[in-house]
Each structure stands twice: as structure tokens, then as C-alpha cells.
């Protein structure tokens, strides 16, 4: 007999809603989001601008409070410490211009007060893993946009958090770099085994990356559906031309009312 705790998912969202108030007016940013996420999943949140995907991310990051519903992160197997267990990646790399890449990657370790020698070691490994080992001592201005984003992914991993939140991390990159970064993220995710929430408005990107896809719609912002994506592994670019891939994207278009 399994205990109920063992069945608890890593993240459970139940009827989560969030309303913003500006000058007496109310904006429903997120409503009735219900979803379970297992540890180690890469969940893509896809939807148009204004569908509340970023708001949902901020609620999970503990940056915003939600108005109703429950947000549970962590379970008995894998307890979650707010702050310590969150890694974030944004659309802009947001590297500190006056720090070298290595020192940028170490920022979360400094803020959390982790032992620096061990963190430095780890940062060096991560720089290698994201493929910019030669740029450890370079300044951000010397790196291309794609390489800066690799550095910011390494930064999100340096304190070994359990949950990585990514808010359109490749949205500012050119199309080819973006494809390459999708493959890289796939590899990094597999190597690190982290739970990743990935916000995007790229439908193809969502299907390609997601082990699970959640579709959010705007006006009013709500979650239309979420489903597991079962595509052949390992996912290479050729997966994108498969029939199954087409089915999934078609399904998302339909959910967004664009079919």
C-alpha cells in the first residue's frame, strides 16, 4: 500500500487565480489554473501575450501572492525551500556588465551565502556544460546573445535548485540561434534532471521541449488544457517534421482558437 504522501506530485496547482488592481480597475491575470507537475518534467506554458503565463511563473517564484487556490511545491520525497530551490531565466540574460561570466554565474551562490569554493567549482562545471567554457573570464559585452543566455542558464543552476523557471528565455534570439538553444536546453535538462517550467509563445517550441504542455488563453486569462507530450526520444530536429508533432501543434492551435 502506498502512502498518500508518495502520490503527491512535486508541484500541485489547484484553482490558482491572481487579479491585479490598477487605479480602481481589476485585471484577471490568471484564473483557475489546475495542474500537477512531476519532478524532472519540463513543462511548457504556451499562450498569447496577456494570458498570464509570466504571472503564473512569478507566483511560483514567490514574487507574487495568488488570490485564491492553492500552490504547493515540493513533497515528502523532495522538499522545497523557497529562495534556495528556485532558479530563474528571463528573456534578457540580465548579466551584470561589470562581472566576468564566472562571477555572474556565482551571483545566486553569493546571495544565498553558499560556500564559495564549492560554488566556484560547480560554476566551472556548469560553464562547461552550457558550452561557454572559454568565456569564463570574459565580460558579458564580449558574448553574443545566445552565449549570454547560456550563461544565464548556468546561473540559474549554480545553487542546485529543484525548480527552474524560464520566462521566454529564447524570445530575443534570432530563429536559428533559438533552434540551437532548444536542442541545448533539451540536453541541459536531461543532464541536470531539473524540473523546468518554460514559458513561451512559440507553439512549436512548446511541443518540441515539453514533456507536458499547458495551454493558456488570454481575455479572460485561463488555462485551456494541459497534456503530456509523447514524442520519440531523443528529440532531435527531425521530430518536428513527424506526424505526431503536427498533431500536437494542431491541437494547441485549436485550443487557442486559431484553427
Amino acid at each position, binding site marked *: 500500500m502506498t502512502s498518500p504522501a508518495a502520490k503527491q506530485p512535486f508541484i500541485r496547482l489547484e484553482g490558482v487565480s491572481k487579479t491585479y488592481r490598477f487605479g480602481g480597475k481589476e485585471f484577471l491575470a490568471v484564473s483557475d489554473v489546475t495542474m500537477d507537475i512531476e519532478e524532472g518534467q519540463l513543462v511548457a506554458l504556451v499562450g498569447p501575450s496577456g494570458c498570464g503565463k509570466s504571472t503564473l511563473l512569478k507566483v511560483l517564484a514567490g514574487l507574487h501572492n495568488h488570490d485564491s487556490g492553492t500552490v504547493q511545491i515540493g513533497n515528502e520525497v523532495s522538499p522545497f525551500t523557497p529562495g534556495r530551490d528556485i532558479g530563474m531565466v528571463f528573456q534578457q540574460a*540580465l548579466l551584470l*556588465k561589470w562581472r566576468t561570466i564566472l562571477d555572474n554565474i556565482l551571483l545566486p551562490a553569493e546571495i544565498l551565502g553558499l560556500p564559495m569554493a564549492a560554488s566556484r567549482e560547480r560554476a566551472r562545471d556548469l560553464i562547461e556544460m552550457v558550452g561557454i567554457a572559454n568565456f569564463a573570464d570574459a565580460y558579458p559585452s564580449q558574448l553574443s546573445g545566445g552565449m549570454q543566455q547560456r550563461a544565464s542558464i548556468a546561473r540559474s543552476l549554480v545553487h542546485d535548485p529543484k525548480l527552474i523557471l524560464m520566462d521566454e528565455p529564447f524570445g530575443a534570439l534570432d530563429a536559428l540561434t533559438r533552434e540551437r538553444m532548444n536542442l541545448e536546453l533539451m540536453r541541459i535538462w536531461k543532464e541536470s534532471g531539473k524540473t523546468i517550467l518554460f514559458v513561451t509563445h512559440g507553439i512549436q517550441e512548446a511541443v518540441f521541449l515539453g514533456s507536458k504542455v499547458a495551454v493558456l488563453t488570454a481575455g479572460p486569462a485561463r488555462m485551456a488544457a494541459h497534456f503530456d507530450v509523447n514524442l520519440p526520444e531523443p528529440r532531435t530536429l527531425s521530430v518536428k517534421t513527424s506526424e505526431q508533432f503536427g498533431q500536437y501543434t494542431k491541437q494547441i492551435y485549436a485550443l487557442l482558437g486559431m484553427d
Partner: protein
Amino acid sequence: MPSFVRGHLYAVLAHVGFLVFWQLAVSIGKVPTYILPGPIDTFLALGEPSYNWLRHTWITALEIFGGYGIAVVVGVALAVLFVWIPALNAALMPLLITLNMVPKVAMAPLFIIWFSYGVFPNMLIAFTICFFPIVLTTYRGLVEVEPELLDLVKSLKGNRWQIFTKIQLPGSLPFLFSGMKVAAVLAVAGAVVGEFIASDSGLGYFLLVQQNALNTSAMMMALLLITGLGVLLYGTVAALEYVFVTRKGISP
């Protein structure tokens, strides 16, 4: 030839070219020395021991660097206070902007009444004229932080002190240096105006004394020395900016 050597070479050539043009214009145009001496006559004035160049230059340098130093310390301190205490910023920033409209040069006669004359009041004039740009630019640099960067630190439960020391303070440096460069020019003007209005030493005072004697060469030399002090100050700031900002690829 490396590009930066070529860049500096052009700069040196332009300066030398200016002196040559000046000398030629005066010689060929037969301009009387009491109207405009050439650079040679001007530099010859340095040889006159009764002019006390060292003492006057020392006094003016003291006023410029002293006033400037106080302005940097007070200006940065105020900007930091404004960032930490928003109420103080809300109350005092508009007042500062109004006070900035007061022509500081016109306050010099009052300073003489309040502090008598000498090195200290002139230092104060240099200070009042050059500290506003430092406060304004530093404050802007401190508050200009990408909101998502704050989100990143907050998601790690970072505190305000960490945000200040790790992000705001280093991020404000390019702004601080641009303010300090503007202030360097103003500090020189402030010190000399102070000496014009009341003093018994300094290059500004010396300028006025030599004017009465129609000793134009000595006046021009004083002007060159004042300019030299300004260039020294500006160059020091620019060098610090290079070390702390430009070399690290942080665009100002």
C-alpha cells in the same frame, strides 16, 4: 600602427597644431603683445620669479580639487540616502532641482559675507557649482535597475543590502563618472570665479592683478595653468572611468 596610438597621435598633433597656428597668426598678423601674445611670449612669462606661479597654482589647485572632492563625497552620499529613504527623495529632490536653478556664481558675494575670503570659501563655491550633477546622475544610476534583475534577486530571497551592494552600487558607476566629468569642468569655473570676487591669491586673483598692468602674457599663462589644472582633474576622472567602467566593457 595600433588604432589607439593613431588616435592619441592625432590628439597630440591637434594640440601642437593649435599652438603653431596661434604663434603664426600672432606673428604674421603682427598682433601687439598686450592684445594677444603668442605661445612663446606666454611661456616666457613662466620665467618671471616675482609672479609666484607655484604658490598661485597651488592655491587654485587646492580650491578646485578640494571643492570637487567634497562635491563627490557629499553628492554620492546624498544620492545613496535618497535611494534608501524614498521620503527624503520625494521631499528634497524637487528642492534640490529648484536650488540648482540659483546661479551659483551669483552667490559668491554672499559666501564672502558668510565665510570671509580665502581658500575655503572658494572651495565652497566650487563645491556648490559642481555637486548637483553628481547627485542627479548618481541617483539615476542607482535607481536604474532592470525590474527583472530585482525579481531574480528577490526570488532568491536576497535582501535590500545585497541588491544595493551587488547590483545598484556597481551599476551606478557609469552614471557617476559621467556626472563627475561634467562636475570637473564646473569645479574649475567655480574656483576661479571665487578668486575673481574676493581673494588675495590663486590664478584667478593673479589674472585680475595682471589685467591692471596690461600684462597680457602673464594673464594668458595663468589661463593656461588653470586649463592645465582642469585637464589634470578631468584626465584623472577619465582614467578612473577607464579602469572601472570602460575596461570592463560597460558602456557609459
